[in-house]
């Protein structure tokens, strides 16, 4: 059974079609990269998995999206509960204007957890996981806004990990960062995949090649090709993919 599965999913924004029917399965504990030119629907597709598209007024979705075999668009599913299982990291680091500690503790607090020792433990664990602990362990009460961009993004990853989701969605998580911070986050993704299923949107071909097991190429709302990353970059089946990964359009 797939960890995540899209079954004939279509998405419309008002009258405009953003995604043609898409069929795609994602294995447990893998990293899947979504690539494609701007506006092709990568973010739209990614946001299906934690129902963030629900927040957009005129967005209409048909088909099924399965998490562990269950349709998350079923009426019995509360998107609030779903988002606790499917964490998300955004393109621009978006820490809350609170302390480093409170940022990571946010998810625990909204779950009604009051136990201080438990929260402190989980915060530390999440910061270790996101490889930020050594840099911030003495300044946990400092405002998160004062961290560097790369540190802020790793803080956002820690914040998402603190509630122990099983899936982590990342929408261009390094596009606003310098090469060193990017390398750190790529390293992190590699370590995290033993515990999480990760789906990452990226514009950076090398990054997709480095971090992902499988790659999906989108073009104009269509899933053109979905295969092992190695195949996509060395021996794609479709000409459009070939042209995109070799940098001839997009």
């Amino acid at each position, binding site marked *: 059974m797939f960890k995540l599965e899209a079954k004939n999913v279509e998405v419309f924004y008002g009258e405009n079609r953003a995604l043609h029917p898409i069929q795609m399965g994602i294995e447990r504990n893998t990293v899947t990269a979504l690539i494609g030119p701007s506006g092709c629907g990568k973010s739209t597709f990614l946001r299906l998995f934690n129902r963030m598209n629900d927040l957009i007024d005129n967005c209409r979705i048909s088909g099924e999206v399965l998490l562990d075999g269950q349709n998350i668009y079923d009426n019995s599913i509360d998107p609030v509960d779903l988002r606790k299982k499917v964490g998300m990291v955004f393109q621009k680091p978006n820490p809350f204007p609170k302390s480093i500690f409170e940022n990571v503790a946010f998810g625990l*607090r909204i779950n009604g957890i009051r136990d201080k020792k438990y929260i402190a433990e989980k915060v530390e664990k999440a910061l270790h996981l996101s490889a930020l602990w050594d840099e911030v362990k003495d300044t946990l009460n400092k405002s998160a806004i004062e961290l560097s961009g790369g540190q802020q993004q790793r803080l956002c990853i820690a914040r998402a990990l603190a509630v122990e989701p099983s899936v982590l969605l990342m929408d261009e998580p390094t596009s606003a960062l310098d090469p060193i911070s990017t390398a750190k986050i790529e390293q992190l993704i590699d370590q995290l995949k033993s515990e999480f299923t990760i789906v990452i949107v990226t514009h950076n071909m090398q990054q997709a090649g480095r971090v992902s097991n499988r790659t999906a190429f989108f073009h104009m709302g269509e899933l053109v090709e979905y295969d092992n990353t190695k195949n996509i970059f060395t021996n794609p089946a479709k000409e459009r993919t070939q042209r995109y990964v070799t940098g001839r359009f997009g």
Partner: protein
Amino acid sequence: MARQAEQRFGSLFWQAFIKACGYASSVLVLIIVLFLFSEGMGLFSSPAIDRELVAAVHPDNPITEIDEETLHALLGEEITTWADFRSAKVELVNVNNLEKKLKAYGLQGRPEDVLGQNFERLPLLLDSMLTVHPGMLIILQPHFVPQRAKQVNVGHISLGRFLAGRTWDPTRSPSPLFGALPLLWGTILVTLGALFFALLLGPPVAMYMAELAPKPIYRWLKPTVELLAGIPSVVFGFIGLVVLVPNIQVVFGLDSGSTVLAGCMLLAVIALPTIISVSEDAIRAVPRTLKEASLGMGATHWQTMIRVIVPYSAPGILAAILLGVGRIVGETMAVLMVTGNTPQMVGFDFLASVRTMSAAIAAEMGEAPQGGLHYKSLFAVGCLLFLLTFIINLVGELLVAKKIKQR
């Protein structure tokens, strides 16, 4: 070339114009403040009796100056003997008791008949009275004071008595009472009450409009709030007078519904549009990415509002509240119409009548002769009002700056 030069000249001209406007308005503000204070402070270099009156005593009385405090004690008959003048009994003669004193001295018939149409013979009569009652203190127009009597200086009105005095009776003769405390307290009490109602309603309504209201309701609510902001405060005052005041009278079983409470409720309504609009803008300024971060963590909309939106927009909401307070403190017409306009000390009684500083200025300025004590005292009240709003704005700026820095 010519066109370029022309354009350059044009931009230089507009730059100079904008600068000139900036300077002119700063200077204008400065001049207004200076004028306010020079008129207001004039009160404290004026003698504590009406401009056209003088005080005079027996020539042998050693006193040369009466300060404000002593004068009021003498007028209030708290001091009845001259300490330095053989303990002579104080015999006060002024406009209010002149007729009574003359009768007591043995004058028969109407004063006009005996003293002449314009009281020409009054100084003579007072002169003879002075012999019988050496302790006399005459406070009258200079031409009624007998030649022999000695004029004494009356001390200046003191700032302390202005700020701490508990009676506002600016038309009392011969020595008016300028205790601004009841006015100051009236303003503070009405402001606090109005703030309570405005706080209860303003930020929640703003939150509802920015985050919760369905589109059709919002499309109806937003113009309503803006319309409210455009209604002149006299109209609010009138509505308050015919709707609010009678209802308060009935509900609380009062003799008059013109109370602090009526003022508070009305001023809250007047301040609400400002508070709501500015708060709404502050709430809408919360970055979408922050809301998405919170919702993406599995926070409910409500949790996102409380834990992310409120803390982030708090400085803006604070600024909104202070703008509202600014409107409340300076508001005049509405508060004049519904608070009963009675200058008295009321403590925390919201069902009593008060007069606020702004109402006092508006109501009394017309009847205060220009340049007189009353006129100056109203300017002094104006200074006090200015200082109050200035302090509120200053505190507000500091709070907002501090809050923003904490981010």
